[in-house]
């Protein structure tokens, strides 16, 4: 079997695996798990074996279902097309899915109806792979539908809890609204261009802006923005991510909203090729900046571990959209890098939250504390994840954020627009606030005072630790060797995005793009800031060793543990404690940073009022968002 068939077989095998579990897996947990894992590994092998032909040799795979090739330059059949950008996201999705699958083996051991879980999980995986590998805009819509419905069902998986059902409902309603936007957009496009193939659409729509196409663009842009949960479409996220099991939360934030990002990139860079227009750039950067700021400030106000992570997902998506909205090569590189990094560290953090839930039975920050001595592995992984998302060097979050700062500031200087410089400032401030809210989690969950009711907590089983450790190692590796990541993942993807000719020609036949008058964009990556993590690490280790040697020559009887509880006091220290009990902390996790919250009281009142929890409001925001984008596009693109 030649590798031409791999993409479609990968998607199909996931669905077939899901159906097999639905038929044979009822009440047979081991069988369900077995089928799921085997199917997943099979899809992994298929997708990762495309690395060599597609990324290393630059081949673009095109596959026509049933051999319905285009006739006289007109595409009728459904085509699958995998270029470097598609494969970039497909590999990311496969990795996250596999980690989630390994993690759920032990994590869900107390839950029932596992066959449903794995059926839905595999169908979700198939849909995600389908979204990034299809070359047909309507096929993409169908896959997005499958994704939305399976994700809603998985969100409500623990349906004995009221919050799960509520979250599933919100997700379903908002998801359907988004799908409606996308379908309307596709319908308008079909009416205008009489084709659904993305490669052909790209040649038809390129520079062809009239009210119909712009309206279709606004509809599809809003729909995909809803799928990646940007402001003001982000509303179902906090409930959905926090009510879903951690393994699903990880999929939500690690692969589902990445599909939204993928679709946005396809839409703006390839389908409509509008990224050269300053108006579109302004709109995307504006949406991104607002998203990241509101997301992070809302995260600071949360007191549930998973809810906090959910708001950070929104905020980090803001970074990604800001970066890809700049329309420059370095912006796109930074955006894609941040997308993949976000999948790693946010997946890791969700797994840590799941581990805490597994061990302690709650994720409420006000009821946790002092877990670090009981769960050293989880603590260590969590700290890596927290430092990565906060952009502490040399972890991966820093490398990508650093590219985004460069990209925004470079944009500011080249366009002479101080607004982009303020976006850089906002990005930095958001990054510090991210650090703040993770310090809050560290203090409230892992360090701080130990709660007596948590004395029976144990470290999670090894099978749950494996994915966490793998993902933390990747966080460190991507941060220190970002040059390799750039050469082997980002550069090919960015190249494929900016040079649409290859994509169109692979699908429609040689020189099709050139014949239809598509302009050719030259891609030159420019880095003007520099950062060498390896040097930093070497210097750091040398200094650390030197200091360590000096410390060791000092006092030798150090580090003894003092019993500072009155009942265990020995003679030497009894004078200081005289039998007193140690002080309880009155500062709960959610009370930290009150000085900051006090200054922002009015702001928080408004923003928290907006997140009312009522679905009607949320749908209204989504429709308002669509209206804003439509009006913006009509005024600034057509009205020029």
């Amino acid at each position: 079997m030649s590798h031409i068939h791999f993409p479609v077989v990968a998607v199909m095998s996931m669905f077939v695996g899901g159906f097999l579990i639905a038929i044979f897996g009822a009440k047979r947990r081991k069988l369900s798990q077995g089928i799921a894992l085997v199917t997943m590994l099979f899809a992994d092998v298929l997708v990762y074996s495309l690395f060599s032909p597609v990324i290393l040799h630059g081949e673009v795979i095109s596959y026509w279902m049933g051999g319905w090739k285009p006739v006289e330059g007109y595409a009728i059949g459904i085509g699958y097309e995998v270029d470097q950008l598609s494969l970039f996201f497909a590999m990311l999705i496969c990795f996250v899915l596999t980690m989630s699958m390994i993690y759920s083996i032990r994590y869900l051991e107390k839950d029932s109806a596992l066959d449903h879980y794995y059926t839905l999980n595999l169908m979700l995986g198939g849909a995600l792979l389908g979204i990034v590998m299809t070359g047909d805009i309507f096929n993409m819509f169908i896959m997005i539908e499958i994704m939305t419905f399976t994700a809603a069902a998985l969100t409500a998986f623990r349906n004995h809890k009221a919050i799960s059902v509520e979250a599933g409902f919100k997700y379903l309603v908002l998801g359907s609204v988004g799908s409606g936007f996308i379908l309307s957009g596709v319908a308008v496009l079909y009416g205008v261009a009489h084709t659904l193939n993305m490669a052909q659409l790209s040649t038809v729509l390129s520079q062809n802006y009239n009210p119909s196409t712009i309206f279709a663009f606004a509809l599809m842009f809003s729909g995909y923005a809803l799928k990646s949960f940007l402001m003001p479409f982000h509303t179902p996220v906090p409930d959905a991510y926090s009510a879903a099991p951690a393994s699903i939360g990880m999929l939500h934030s690690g692969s589902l909203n990445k599909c939204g990002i993928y679709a946005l990139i396809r839409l703006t860079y390839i389908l409509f090729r509008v990224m050269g227009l300053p108006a579109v750039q302004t709109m995307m950067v504006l949406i991104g900046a607002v998203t990241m700021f509101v997301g992070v400030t809302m995260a600071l106000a949360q007191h549930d571990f998973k809810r906090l992570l959910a708001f950070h997902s929104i905020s980090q998506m803001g970074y990604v959209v800001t970066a890809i909205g700049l329309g420059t090569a370095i912006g796109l590189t930074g955006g894609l890098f941040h997308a993949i990094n976000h999948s790693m560290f946010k997946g890791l953090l969700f797994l840590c939250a799941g581990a805490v839930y597994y061990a302690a039975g709650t994720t409420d920050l006000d009821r946790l504390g002092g877990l670090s001595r009981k769960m050293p592995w989880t603590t260590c992984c969590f700290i890596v994840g927290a430092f990565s998302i906060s952009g502490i060097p040399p972890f991966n979050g820093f490398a990508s954020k650093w590219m985004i700062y460069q990209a925004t500031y470079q944009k500011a200087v080249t366009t002479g627009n101080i607004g982009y410089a303020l976006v850089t400032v906002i990005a930095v401030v958001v990054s510090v606030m991210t650090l703040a809210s993770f310090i809050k989690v560290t203090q409230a969950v892992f360090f701080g005072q130990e709660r007596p009711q948590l004395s029976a907590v144990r470290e999670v089983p090894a099978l749950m630790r494996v994915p966490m450790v793998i993902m933390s190692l990747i966080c460190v590796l991507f941060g220190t060797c970002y040059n390799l990541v750039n050469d082997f993942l980002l550069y090919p993807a960015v190249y494929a995005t900016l040079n649409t000719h290859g994509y169109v020609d692979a699908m429609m036949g040689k020189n099709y793009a050139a014949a239809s008058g598509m302009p050719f964009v030259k891609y030159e990556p420019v880095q003007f800031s520099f950062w060498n993590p390896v040097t930093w690490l070497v210097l750091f280790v040398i200094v650390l060793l030197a200091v360590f040697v000096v410390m060791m020559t000092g006092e030798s009887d150090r580090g003894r543990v003092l019993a500072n509880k009155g009942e265990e006091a020995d003679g030497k220290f009894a004078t200081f404690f005289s039998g007193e009990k140690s002080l309880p902390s009155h500062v709960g996790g959610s009370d930290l940073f009150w000085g900051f919250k006090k200054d922002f009281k009015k702001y928080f009142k408004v923003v928290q009022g907006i997140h009312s929890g009522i679905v009607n409001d949320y749908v209204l925001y989504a429709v308002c968002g669509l209206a804003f984008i439509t009006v913006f596009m009509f005024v600034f693109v057509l009205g020029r």
Partner: protein
Amino acid sequence: MIQDTLMVLFHILVFPGLLFVCVCGLLLAGIDRKVLAHMQKRVGPPIVQPLYDFLKLMGKETIVPQAANRTVFLAAPVIGFAGLVVMMLFIPVFGYGTFNGSADLIVLLYLLTIPAVALIIGGSASGNPYAGIGISREMVTMMAYEFPLIMVFLAVARKVGSVGALSFSMLNIEKWQQVNGSLITHWAMIPAAIAMLLIIPAEVGTQPFDVAEAETEICEGPLVEYSGAPLAMFKLNTAVRMFIMTALFTMLFLGGITTGMVWLDAIILVAICALVTVCTMTLLHGICARLKIEHLFKFYWTVVAALSLLSLALVWCGL
């Protein structure tokens, strides 16, 4: 080959690395205490007193509280200190430096957070409620000063870059100042320089911005459970941060003065750093009482941010 390696090790461990930074930091801390004492009509300790304190603490017993996470509690001060020293290797001392091709101004902004985060994580790992309050305040202080600080850096980068370009390279900033005169002599940069002078005390954590370690109310916050060698390391951290922040200010705004002789340049650098220390930290310490955390935050996000934004806007208009 061996000679090269030894030379690199000399750079890392002696000059401008570990030893130089420690000595200068402790010296600045001593000068700070002496001048402050004179302001308050006291005689004050000898200038080498911080060194005595450090040596004394190194010899004391280290006590780890039972509620603490032992590894993190003991490792945090050392990691923070190593982060600080490595940072100094990236700052060119009047154009002199071996490693400043490895990191630039944006990276430096983030390397600056490492020691602060080490303090926070260490305090958090001690499990003490006072430390909990302390780290919360330290974090809010950090949020407060990062906002103006990034704008100061952006203004400098814009000013130094040619038309339509920018430069975050610290070596370029230094060279630009050698040609065009120190940045502080360009009047558009004066608000940014004042903002930076106000940021230094908060970054170092001296009064009136020492809310995180407020001795009289929360018993030194994150440091409350520390004793012996780890405490000595944290005290050294504060002293070294004083030196690094003032050296950064010198590099950014008072650069371009070079005699060509490295040792003389180093002495000039230390002298200027001492002057900056007295002007910002000692003076403010002498005349102001400690702020409340919400006032501190408001001060940085309004007054200081406005100053740096003014500079950024002026530079943007080509002034």
